[in-house]
């Protein structure tokens, strides 16, 4: 392998070097600094005679005499089932003191697009045990459903709760598990730029609940090189694809925090002096994010699945910021955390009104969850939205000025928050329990107000004696 000492320019995370052979786009590069450190990078632009290299581990210590080696291949992730239970750094090297990883295979981390023709449409209900999700924004296997959060909100607790509690109800019957252990549930956790404290919180919980055994953890911490963050989720997803589509696992991928990932993209874009798009983020950010998020789903004739829960913190709680905005256009809905609900002490502080699960309608109903699920959810939405509107009005005219009907809606909104949403991070509710609470709440409204539920179902579930709620 030829070594070059031809670096001509170093700028931010980028290194430019002259070459006298043809180097492939996206290939991996090793740079050895005078002090003997080896840093890895990737070709961002290749022309005859000159290449631009993006260095993952930061360019500190590189000088124009550093030697550059071209590895002749694009970035690969060593994959094996033995990765389960392991903790790796953001570049995929073990940091848990365990043995070296002996890969079954080395996979290209960019990943190829799934042929839409080969996809299986996701419609298997995942019970997360969280009413605000199961009842109102149902998650299904193969979905990508991000949590839109903001600084200071307990999104990590919610993510952990989901990772801990998520099951597919049929599996409880115990039939699937006997089949060659094919239907196990694995967690791939990709952390980008989270603090050491947050990382500990996750690790402690994984260890405490024994979840670590069925998890692969990739850790890029806040003080790790920012550019490495562009690689971490790709390593995580490559691992997830191997586990899901080659080994038949049902994989839950949690990526946190996507905002840090996007910041890293912007940093590289700025260093390359690209024409910036909105708020300085590169124009190709949509395509780039799609290449991550679209690596979720199910394939026809394949046992496993990838369900993604990316977490992002919205700068300034603004959901029109480019990061949540572009994410929302790619993912199949969003779970929205709310600062007001948080300050009221609700756990989890999920605001169901702006939340959405696009795949919900196909994953619920008779034979999947319960026949009344869709109607109950629609009715709860409509009633809660009406109660919210009335709250604004109460601030102006006071409760006494409102009609009896309006007062019922106000009470409904309060109870919806305290009974339905506020369940705590340790409570695991099954779907029947969630729907029962829903009916308790709906029964406080007059029967004639229930226009989103089938009349037969109203007869079946509506409790004439509204006092039941107090019980």
């Amino acid at each position, binding site marked *: 392998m030829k070594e070059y000492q031809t670096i001509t320019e170093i700028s931010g995370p980028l290194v430019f070097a002259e070459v006298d052979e*043809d*180097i492939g786009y996206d290939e991996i590069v090793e740079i050895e600094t005078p002090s003997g450190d080896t840093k890895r990078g990737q070709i961002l632009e290749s*022309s005859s005679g000159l290449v631009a290299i993006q260095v993952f581990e930061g360019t500190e210590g590189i000088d124009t005499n550093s030697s550059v080696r071209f590895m002749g291949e*694009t970035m690969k992730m060593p994959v094996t089932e033995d990765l389960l239970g392991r903790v790796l750094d953001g570049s995929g090297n073990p940091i848990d003191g365990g043995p070296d990883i002996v890969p079954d295979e080395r996979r290209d981390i960019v990943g190829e*697009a799934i*042929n839409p023709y080969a996809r299986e449409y996701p419609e298997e209900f995942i019970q997360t045990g969280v009413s605000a999700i199961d009842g109102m924004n149902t998650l299904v296997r193969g979905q990508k459903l991000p949590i839109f959060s903001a600084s200071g909100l307990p999104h990590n607790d919610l993510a952990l709760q989901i990772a801990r509690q998520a099951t597919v109800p049929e599996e409880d019957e115990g039939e699937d598990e006997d089949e060659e252990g094919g239907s196990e549930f694995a967690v791939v956790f990709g952390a980008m730029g989270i603090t050491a404290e947050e990382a500990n919180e996750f690790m402690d919980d994984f260890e405490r609940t024994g979840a670590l055994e069925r998890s692969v953890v990739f850790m890029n911490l806040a003080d790790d090189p920012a550019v490495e963050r562009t690689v971490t989720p790709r390593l995580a997803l490559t691992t997830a694809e191997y586990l899901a589509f080659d080994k038949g696992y049902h994989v839950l991928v949690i990526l946190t925090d996507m905002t840090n990932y996007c910041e890293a993209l912007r940093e590289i874009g700025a260093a390359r002096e690209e*024409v910036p798009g909105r708020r300085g983020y590169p124009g190709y950010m949509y395509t780039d994010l799609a290449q991550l998020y679209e690596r979720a*789903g199910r394939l026809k004739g394949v046992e496993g699945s990838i369900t993604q829960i990316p977490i992002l913190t919205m700068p300034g709680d603004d959901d029109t910021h480019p990061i949540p905005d572009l994410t929302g256009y790619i993912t199949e809905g969003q779970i929205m955390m709310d600062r007001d609900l948080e300050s009221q002490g609700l756990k989890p502080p999920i605001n169901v009104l702006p939340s959405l699960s696009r795949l919900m309608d196909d994953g619920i109903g008779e034979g999947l969850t319960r026949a009344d699920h869709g109607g109950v959810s629609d009715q709860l939405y409509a009633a809660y939205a009406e109660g919210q509107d009335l709250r604004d009005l109460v601030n102006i005219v006071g409760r006494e000025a409102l009609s009896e009907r309006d007062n019922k809606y106000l009470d409904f909104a309060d109870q919806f928050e305290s009974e339905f949403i506020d369940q705590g991070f340790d409570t695991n509710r099954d779907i029947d329990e969630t729907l029962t609470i829903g009916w308790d709440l709906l029964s406080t409204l007059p029967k004639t107000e229930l226009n989103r539920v089938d009349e037969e179902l109203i007869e079946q579930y509506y409790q004439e004696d509204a006092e039941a709620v107090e019980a």
Partner: protein
Amino acid sequence: MSQATDSEAVREDGVIESVSGPVVTATDLGAKMNDVVYVGDEGLMGEVIEIEGNLSTIQVYEETSAVAPGEPVENTGEPLSVDLGPGMLDTIYDGVQRPLDVLQEKMNSAFLDRGVDAPGIDLERTWEFEPTVEEGDEVEPGDVVGIVEETVTIDHKVMVPPGYEGGEVAAIEAGKFTVEETVAELDTGEEIQMRQEWPVRSPRPSADKQTPTTPLISGQRILDGLFPLAKGGTAAIPGPFGSGKTVTQQSLAKFSDADIVVYIGCGERGNEMTEVIDDFPDLPDPQTGNALMARTCLIANTSNMPVAARESCVYTGITIAEFYRDMGYDVALMADSTSRWAEAMREISSRLEEMPGEEGYPAYLAARLSQFYERAGYFENINGTEGSISVIGAVSPPGGDFSEPVTQNTLRIVKTFWALDADLAERRHFPAINWDESYSLYQDQLDPWYRENVAEDYPEVRQWAVDTLDEEGELQEIVQLVGKDALPPDQQLTLEVARYLREAWLQQNAFIEVDQYCPPEKTYGILTAIKHFNDEAFEALDAGVPVEEIQNIDAAPQLNRIATTEDEEAEEFIDELEADITEQLRELY
């Protein structure tokens, strides 16, 4: 993608000079603008988009990892073209017309590999050709010489290609032919095959463009009722994420009364396209009862597929639409979403380091958008038949802000605007189309059709609904300040009527089977039932009945149930309901 079958088209080889994402430059290519080239050792398909001296810039339709300078580039010397012929319906393509099922088979993988090519229509399959002209007949370009049954729903018409001279038919025969075999010969020596090739960036010729006067019935109450689209018209659906663009587009694809539907998933979600692929073969076409796929051509270029193919997929789609228009069909084309197309232009433009226009979009954005929408219309074809292309483009404005360039430039061209609203979506009011902001400029030219085919007073009743909703909008502002009970009784009643308009008429549940599609008669029926309630209620109010008692009659909430009543029973249900309303209200005074 059309494959040049004559291999002498390969003229000259170039050499890659540099690679940066989907943009590759090559020297010594000797190419014309927009020539299709095959890049690198793997032969990745690309298109020449800039020529500077000896250096050609190419946008590559596939992933370029590991492509290196020095690798060869092969020029086909032909522009990006599609194969046109029987077999396009009931098929799903990627952005450069490669059938996805064939790709899966060829790659033997669920993932899309690189460098695999496939013809847009099956070259092996034979079709039963039935001539419609005889030997000795005079034919001109565009004329139909025969028919093959492409699907149970659609007869595919075999036409003389537009570039031909035309003349007397020298030989023609019924029988089984592949798309490449000659089905007819002219005395000029020209031979006619079922397959035609057409460059996607140039519109197919037509004789004349006419004013559209027939509505494209969508089965969506708010669209047919308030903001109708004409056959041959253009519409835009802008809205923030989660407001229901895709559900609306899919409803249109499923239920609109077009003959042919071309559905372009441009830069959207993979699972969404899978849903379409899974659902459409099982769903019946509301016009014929046959499978919906029998009239549908799908183009799926999901968000993670190469960005350059996203740029080309709308052209692929509209060219296919034009071919069916030439046969005299009414085609509806859905592009979901045109914003992703515009962003693909922006991405390529920024890699070319062009001077950006507004928000980084290239300065030619407006021109490209208008060129695309102008390919819609109600046409007189060169063979004398009439056909139409209606284009419905979804727009995904960042942050739901309609002042951004793609929405604004689209609105300057299209005549129907269906504004999706995040507020309505949050309330689960679907379709979340805002009735204040939306408009249709086709109303006047379509009213005669509605008067003749639905009801004589249709435009008047519609106007009543618009006025009532407008009044509600104004009253709501007051209610926000003082509460509903502070309003005078007549205004409270107006609010009640408007509520029924919203809940019983404008809302429509795409997930309930009976309510997915609402025929225009039922749309009108629900509206007149609400108007009946309105008229009777105001009479009762004039007679001194308190507004609470009027609101509380048992029959009124039944208005909400009309939509979910089977279409055949709806008329009877409405008659009974109107009688109940009259009876119950008159009892009060």
